[in-house]
């Protein structure tokens, strides 16, 4: 038995060593007995970035490897090596929990709008020094003064997007298309996919009925529930990212998701599926923006990083990777980017918004107080269980 296990142990160790020698992060990690130093022993700076998963161009498919390129760029321009710890999270709430409990410290985070509003209210973000972020001038003026940061002090917009309706033109009649009513059309019973989270699902019903999605009037929420209960027998299932596979395969014909994600589905659709997209009468807008949390260790480095993300090459690479619209002028006015995306994609991602800020402020989800959120969750359970 002893002999038998030797090769196994040796292999395990060898495997660990092989993959372990690639870097020194294991040993250079600060233990709980010391705060992370701005510099390692060898003079390398450390910057901690916390972003959504799959939300940066990472070098796959010969794309631009943003994090590594930034490290090289920084060393070239400032003469000092830098190491970026790039961590990811799955939702605003995950990120908020980690930061609010004071368990971790990051220098740059990229939350969504309503979470930024909440973090500002709870003193979790630092005001930015825009002298260090000259590329902020690249951000379109219509992204100034959005409700979550009305004075433009704490955040720099990174991406934005709008929820729309996706349908399979081989199944759905063009005459039925154009509004939220398609999601309630009995002709397509069993072909409809609805969001599997309360805020977005109630949102579809409220936009359709012309109700303010941030209303504190509980009877309005009850009315939205009644609509969703009418819709329920028509719904095939309530989904989040399962929607990609189901729409691509043609298992369902109607769904609702973000404009940028529609292109991912379009890329992968099966031969007998013809996916199309439209914006209904009113719909949800979101903005994700770069911020500096109050636990930040090197604010100047964080601002240099944010400024770098706004410069042409990384900004375009990220916009192409994520497929969400960019508020950055050097991206959407760049001819190479326009050619790469194609005319159809450009017209969907960057339609003529008119007064974007006004629409955004009217339709975006805001942070609701916890009593109301509890109430919405009870309504949601009624929908899902009964």
């Amino acid at each position: 038995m002893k002999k038998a296990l030797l090769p196994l142990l040796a292999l395990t160790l060898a495997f660990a060593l092989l993959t372990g020698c690639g870097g020194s992060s294991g040993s250079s990690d600060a233990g709980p007995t010391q705060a992370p130093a701005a510099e390692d022993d060898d003079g390398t700076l450390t910057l901690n970035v916390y972003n959504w998963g799959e939300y940066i161009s990472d070098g796959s498919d010969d794309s631009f490897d943003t994090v590594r390129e930034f490290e090289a760029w920084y060393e070239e321009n400032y003469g000092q090596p830098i190491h970026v710890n790039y961590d990811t999270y799955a939702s605003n709430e995950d990120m908020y929990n980690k930061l609010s409990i004071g368990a971790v410290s990051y220098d740059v985070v990229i939350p969504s709008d309503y979470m930024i509003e909440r973090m500002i209210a709870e003193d979790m973000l630092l005001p930015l020094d825009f002298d260090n972020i000259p590329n902020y001038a690249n951000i379109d003026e219509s992204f100034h003064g959005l409700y979550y940061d009305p004075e433009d002090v704490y955040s720099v917009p990174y991406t934005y997007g709008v929820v729309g309706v996706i349908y399979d033109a081989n199944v759905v009649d063009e005459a039925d298309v154009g509004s939220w009513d398609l999601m309630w059309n009995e002709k397509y019973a069993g072909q409809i996919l609805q969001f599997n989270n309360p805020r977005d699902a109630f949102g579809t019903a409220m936009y359709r009925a012309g109700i303010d999605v941030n209303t504190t009037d509980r009877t309005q929420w009850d009315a939205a529930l009644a609509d969703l209960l009418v819709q329920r027998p028509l719904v095939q299932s309530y989904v989040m990212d399962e929607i990609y596979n189901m729409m691509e395969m043609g298992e369902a014909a109607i769904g609702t998701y973000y404009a940028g994600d529609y292109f991912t589905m379009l890329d992968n659709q099966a031969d007998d599926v013809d996916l199309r997209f439209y914006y209904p009468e009113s719909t949800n807008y979101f903005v994700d923006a770069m911020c500096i949390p109050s636990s930040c260790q090197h604010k100047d480095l964080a601002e240099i990083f944010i400024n770098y993300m706004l410069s042409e090459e990384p900004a375009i690479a990220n916009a192409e990777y994520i497929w969400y619209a960019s508020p950055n002028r050097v991206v959407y006015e760049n001819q190479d980017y326009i050619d790469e995306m194609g005319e159809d994609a450009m017209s969907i991602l960057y339609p003529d918004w008119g007064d974007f800020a006004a629409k955004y402020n009217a339709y975006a989800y805001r942070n609701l107080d916890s009593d109301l959120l509890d109430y919405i969750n009870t309504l949601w359970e009624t929908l899902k269980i009964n």
Partner: protein
Amino acid sequence: MKTASKIFTGLMFLFLFAPIVILLVFSFNEAKSTSVFSGFSLRWYRELFRDTETLKTVRNTLVLAVCAAGVSTVMGTAAAVGIDRMRSKYLRSALDTVTNIPMINPDIITGISMMLMFVFAGRLFGFANSLSFSTLLIAHITFCLPYVILQVLPKLRQMDASLPEAAMDLGCTPWRAFWKVELPELLPGVVTGMIMAFTLSLDDFVISYFTTGTGFQTLPIRIYNMTKKTVTPKMYALATIIFFVILTLLLISNLTGRSDSQALNSAKREKKTKN
């Protein structure tokens, strides 16, 4: 009856392995789609080896698993020996129960309570980062320990208690008796415990999710965080590689293990015939 049992076995294997087979097949898909197989290609394997961030999390996961397995094996073996030598029966069974708590406790409770403890301690000493690699390692050792103890204790009970005594009678120091006589007897249990600790640490998502800090994410956490967009087929490629590495390890340990015990059996038989 026989055919029924054959069908049942077949179904069981189908349910066990169909997901792995599907994953394996789609890791060789040319397109990004997880629904249409458009042609054989190694594209996702190439992509995987270019993705430095994912490889970093793989390395983190392995470093963590090796450290956690190593430390918990040493500590667990020592603890088992200690528990076994206790004179008071009540104290012994009390300790047995206590060590089992982390095993029975739901992961999410272990995770949250450890996070709270680390954050509390961090605040107490005024650290900027209360969570880090060390806290993650402590958490992993904690949930691995009972499994090691559980593997070593039965070996201790099987062992003839007079063996180490005989060694000491013949002039061994207690320390030497432990190394030369006791430990070789316990080794199968120790190694099984270590392998269990290694795989448990490799697998763990929930506890790591709560206790990991800045700059040290493990692979399961990275995959979970991809759900804003879809999980890329790179991950299928990675899962396929991990599956085959573990399969090879298992095969090696089973094959060599069998030939070893066969050799032992034949040696015993020879001895008997000689006598």
